[in-house]
């Protein structure tokens, strides 16, 4: 194995968990998320030498994942039949937290694809506005617009708004 291959393999192991979680929020299930991430890494490897550092490589990965997701949405790709996640019975003391998480995930999945992408990149992958704009190939202002509309939609969701309000109570 060459030094580049070793560095790439290490980068895949290090970057994939966070990238997979963002892809899961976008795509809605693990097989689709794995396909998005694997495609992104496959496109990154041939450009490995041209991307100066891990920051650039990560930015490129986010761009490919986001574009692949949005392109798939435009084409109405339905390669895999969507099925419900397996619900798990929660312990009593975790019931509220579970309801909150489930409601938030459902609300995020109900957002239009570009707003969902902004939420995944900004609030789960922890990218800055400029990095999110680069990943989505749009301006920072556009990201701000999508973000504002997405947050407004989430705030307007009765289940989410109520739960956040509940959370604030002592």
């Amino acid at each position, binding site marked *: 194995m060459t030094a580049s291959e070793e560095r790439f393999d290490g980068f895949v192991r290090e970057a*994939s968990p966070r990238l*997979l979680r963002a892809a*899961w929020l976008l795509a809605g299930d693990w097989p689709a998320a794995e396909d998005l991430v694997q495609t992104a890494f496959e496109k990154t490897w*041939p450009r490995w030498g041209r991307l100066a550092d891990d920051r650039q490589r990560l930015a490129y990965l986010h761009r490919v994942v986001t574009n692949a997701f949005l392109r798939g949405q435009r084409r109405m790709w339905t*390669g895999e*039949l969507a099925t419900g996640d*397996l619900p798990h019975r929660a312990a009593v003391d975790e019931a509220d937290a579970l309801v909150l998480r489930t409601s938030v995930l459902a609300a995020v999945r109900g957002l239009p694809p570009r707003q969902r992408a902004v939420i995944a990149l900004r609030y*789960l992958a922890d990218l800055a506005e400029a990095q999110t704009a680069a990943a989505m190939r749009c301006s920072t202002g556009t990201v701000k617009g999508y973000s504002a509309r997405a947050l407004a939609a*989430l705030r307007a969701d009765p289940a989410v708004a109520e739960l956040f309000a509940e959370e604030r109570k002592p």
Partner: protein
Amino acid sequence: MTDFGDRLARVLHDAVPEPPHEPDPAAIRAGATQHERRKRLLAPALAAAAVAAVAIGVPLAGHQLATHQPPGPRRPAVPSRPAAFTASEFRMAPPPQEVVGPAPMLRATCTPRQISAIAATRRTDRGVLGVIRLVGAVVKHWHGVAERCTLPIARGPTALIGPDGLRLKVPLSAGDRTSLPGNPRPDLALNNGDAIWGFAWLGSYCGAPARAIEIPLRQSGAAPLRVALRGPQPGCEPATGASTLIDGIAGAPGEPVQPPRPEYSSLRLAGQIEPGTTSGQLAPIDLTLRTTGSAPVTLDPCPAYAGRDYATARSGGFSGPISSGYLPCAKHEAVIRPGQPLHWTIPASSFLQSGPGSGAIPGSTVYVQLGIAGVPPLHLKTTAHR
């Protein structure tokens, strides 16, 4: 970030689960190399190569499989899928559900030379799972849409082919017939000339490596199609018993096409409908999957469950699907051990009836049938209350 944004970020970090398994960097690099090579070829050359690959079949397969991989170190229970195949194709569909729809439009049938195909495997517990991808040539354009010829394939792979072009001594198993998986309308995928077919090769194998896999064509007298096979193969571990080839099912690309593991027949599904079924909705169903055998059962291929309810309304009987999904085949939950059953709950579901006389008649019996391929089906019933 705003206060609301902060809280949203915190909830999302808690809510989004950890990935069930890591990607395989070596498979990614191999896939990337294939992508780059493909990009450099012109489209006509690519089409010609695809036809030629089928035409020369085994010799090409031998070239591609020059590096037969011995069994590697222990991997996660559900490893990454090979490049160019989706993870879902290495999963298992639930038993067939009622699907209606029109008969597909008739198209020209592919000749053997018009079919291009590839096959790949990935390792699983005591063997490998495989997928064959079959694509028919474009034979017509209809209002700007390319139409492929129909794949004349009615059954799955029947034999593995060695480096000498002869069939390997790996018997074809009928697999477990308890309850077969089924995709909705695989006939459409075959008719449209773009389909996949799954298979499993399980058990110990100590012979020459397989270079291709054979899948019969429907035309009488036509030689079977030999498809180049790449990926890992079962190891020589006599303690696991002689290997068999198990036929999977057909589907469209991206659909689950794997056959049940033989060990799935030792699994038993049990459960009960919680109190609270009304004329409008079926109460949650608590389910348990356990093994009656003495050995752990690895849930790979990852099975899906599905079911239907049957009820009586004033306007007559009706039925509908209830929530379905895959079992939690993440690393720590992918094995069912004796005495350690898997529990889960299907949430309440609406009967989806509307109009006068709709919904289950109060006091009537509601029947539910649930299934996982390879596992005996579960029948439950409850009474609908007002």
